[in-house]
């Protein structure tokens, strides 16, 4: 048996790949659920019910989807240009911290919509700036950005910890390490009354479509695609590789920073160290499952959110540990990588 390159990958195949990957991942995880003594079908039924069973659970799932779309976009945009940004988590916290600080101090005097827009832009800027450092290091000195962006995550978390225990600590929080709260005027409007769902979801979906258009319709999108696929041919064609990479870094870091700003102003209202249960890292899975397509990211983010929210419900109902959510998401990343391979290669005997 060996692999042979396909001459053409059909659209049906490209669409089927993630579906097949997810089905296989669920089947494999089903084995583990069975080991825990529960019928996997019951477990998945409980999961779906937990994610979609009521108005509340649907709104919870969509609330979870929002940051995953944005961190998924951050990874998808960067990976397409062969910029290995693993720092989504840190960039998210950078955006969150800036949003909390601005949201606490700036509300007075500015009209609400303007203040919200300013906070969003500032969050994006913070995420983008955090990624610019590693990219400049790569361009100037050839430093591997996988290492620098990954390490920055821990540095940023420690910095956040310092800020919320120090200068930005909420004096009214009974000593809990959390930041000062965002003024209620600049909190994002709710999308659904009596739920936690806010307009961040709309912003995230819009961002996905804007990025899709930038990638498929603009000169910048075409040049980054070329630079990502073949640097030598791109520079022969006169594309400035450094400049395209910096542009990509701004979008990628910006999306992760926006995720943080939206979590703070849409949901939590302040920054704590458990603001993100690893959205920056899950974003990588979301992006890979979507084969780096920005619109696909919206759908795969929803899938990952269903798994996480549903697994909590399943765990309460059937006693299967909720860690199974992490297992399902991780296995689906692996199966997706394999099925992506089969979209470009076929097996020959």
């Amino acid at each position: 048996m060996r692999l042979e390159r396909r001459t053409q990958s059909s659209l049906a195949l490209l669409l089927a790949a993630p579906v097949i990957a997810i089905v296989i991942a669920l089947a494999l995880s089903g084995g583990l659920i069975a080991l825990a003594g529960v019928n996997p079908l019951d477990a998945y039924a409980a999961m779906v019910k937990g994610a979609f069973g009521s108005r509340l659970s649907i709104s919870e799932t969509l609330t979870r989807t929002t940051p995953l779309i944005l961190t998924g976009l951050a990874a998808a945009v960067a990976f397409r240009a062969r910029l290995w940004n693993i720092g989504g988590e840190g960039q998210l916290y950078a955006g969150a911290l800036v949003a909390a600080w601005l949201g606490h101090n700036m509300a007075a005097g500015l009209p609400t919509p303007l203040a919200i827009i300013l906070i969003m832009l500032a969050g994006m800027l913070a995420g983008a700036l955090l990624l610019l450092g590693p990219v400049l290091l790569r361009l100037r000195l050839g430093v591997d950005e996988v290492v620098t962006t990954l390490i920055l995550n821990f540095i940023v978390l420690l910095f956040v910890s310092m800020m919320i225990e120090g200068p930005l600590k909420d004096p009214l929080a009974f000593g809990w390490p959390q930041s000062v709260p965002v003024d209620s005027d600049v909190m994002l409007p709710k999308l659904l009354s009596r739920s936690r769902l806010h307009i961040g979801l709309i912003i995230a979906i819009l961002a996905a479509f804007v990025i899709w258009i930038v990638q498929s319709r603009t000169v910048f999108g075409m040049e980054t695609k070329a630079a990502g696929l073949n640097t030598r041919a791109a520079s022969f064609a006169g594309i400035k590789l450094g400049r395209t990479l910096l542009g990509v870094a701004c979008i990628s870091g910006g999306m992760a920073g926006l995720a943080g700003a939206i979590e703070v102003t849409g949901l939590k209202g302040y920054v704590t160290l458990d603001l993100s249960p690893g959205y920056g890292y899950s974003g990588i899975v979301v992006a890979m499952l979507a084969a780096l397509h920005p619109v696909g990211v919206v759908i795969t983010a929803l899938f990952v959110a269903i798994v996480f929210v549903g697994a909590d419900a399943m765990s309460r109902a059937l006693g299967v540990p909720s860690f199974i959510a992490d297992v399902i998401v991780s296995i689906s990343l692996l199966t997706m990588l394999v099925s992506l391979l089969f979209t470009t290669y076929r097996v020959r005997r």
Partner: protein
Amino acid sequence: MNRETVLELAHISKHFGKLIANDDISLTLGKGELLALLGENGAGKTTLMNVLFGHYTADGGQVSAFGEILPPGKPRAAIEAGIGMVHQHFTLAGNLTVLDNVMIGTERLGLLRSGRKQAAAKLRGLSERFGLQVEPYAFVADLSVGEKQRVEILKALYRDARILILDEPTAVLTQIEAEQLFQTLRGMTDTGLSVIFISHKLAEVMAASDRVVILRGGRTVAEKRTSDTNRAELAELMVGRRVVRPVRTDQAPGRNILSAGKVDIVEDGRKLLDGIDFTVRAGEILGIIGVSGNGQAALGQLTCGLRGADTGTLVYDGNQANGFSPRMLVTSGTGRIPEDRNTEGAIAEMAIWENAVLERIHEKRFSAYGFVNRARCRDYATELIDRFDIRGAAPDTRTGLLSGGNMQKMILGRNLAASPKLIIANQPTRGLDEGAIAAVHAELLAARKDGAAILLISEDLDEVLALSDTIQAIFKGRLSAPLSAEDADSRTVGLMMAGIWETSHAA
């Protein structure tokens, strides 16, 4: 002379999707025979050899070696039957020594003692016996292309190959290296080995082979004893029609378009270009001839805008600078044909229309306010496809699916469509077959007639002699004085390529 048959391919067929690569091909190889498999790119030569070696499984037919039928799709069985294959793209590990590369895969795992000593002795024996000089303990990365090929051949011989298959063995070799290779192969067949070599070069097939099998469009069109045929007949059989390379006609050159004055390019303290001077005028082709690796890459990068001169200057149509950016070159009417079409000329994963417009996407007709006008880009690609006869292509075809010749036509097309005043053509016909070469030459000569200045960088002596008005040789980063076409013959230019002018002209 009747030879004992050592290898037989019977009724081999193989298709990829709709493409029929091999259609009922049969051939035999005799003991001690040097057989040439001749055909244009895409004729099915490489596919056939991959079937033979077990890389591909044929849809029909069978292969037998020394009377035994080989199981399909098993390279190991082919190796055990005594078949060795030397691929066009080497399969060597650069960070290992020659000896390690040769031994790899022949030793059983789990042995405590490695047989390196005996292996080295066997390798030395083989190199001496067949005149394949290489140092067993040298690192492969440090070897020249010719030496790497010797290692590939030794690898096959080390595994006791009695049938050797070489896929386009001379594609990467200089003239002299190629001649040495064929001497070596002849030496092998004299000792009873049998050799098949794949080629599309008529000269070497005529000079080296005993017998030639001609493939076209996946079928065997003829089989000839080399002594019973001639170059013209083979060319016609291979292409399926008469191919005549176009001929240059005299014309007076115009004004200076591009000149270089005392240009040095230095890398890691080594001068890649050493005080070079040249001038190309409108309506003139300046041929830079030389064995590859003498500074052509740096000269190509300099003239295509990828790097500037460290000292000295370029003057392009009156503008003086130490270098020009690709963007500036393209907008001011320069056509650039890169040395390597696969890594520099085109992005295989992108559509043809994207590659067609990539370097001029900023022009108004292709984009506005940062948005790509896809309809116009596709129309432009369609225009190129029609005008330059790019076969098997639609604007949305993935560029990597084009054959080498058609990809080169796309690159030529996107450069020539804008009627450039300067063309940098770096190895424009490398790896192309006769039909495609004639087409490229015709396009270049037509551009010259329209007044383009053409800098032709090539290692193909015939090409440079046929096209150039003026010839300069490049040797160790230095350029010879220009020689006009009337004074050029293959002997003089051959000496210049070896740097012989240095002694007579050195100050």
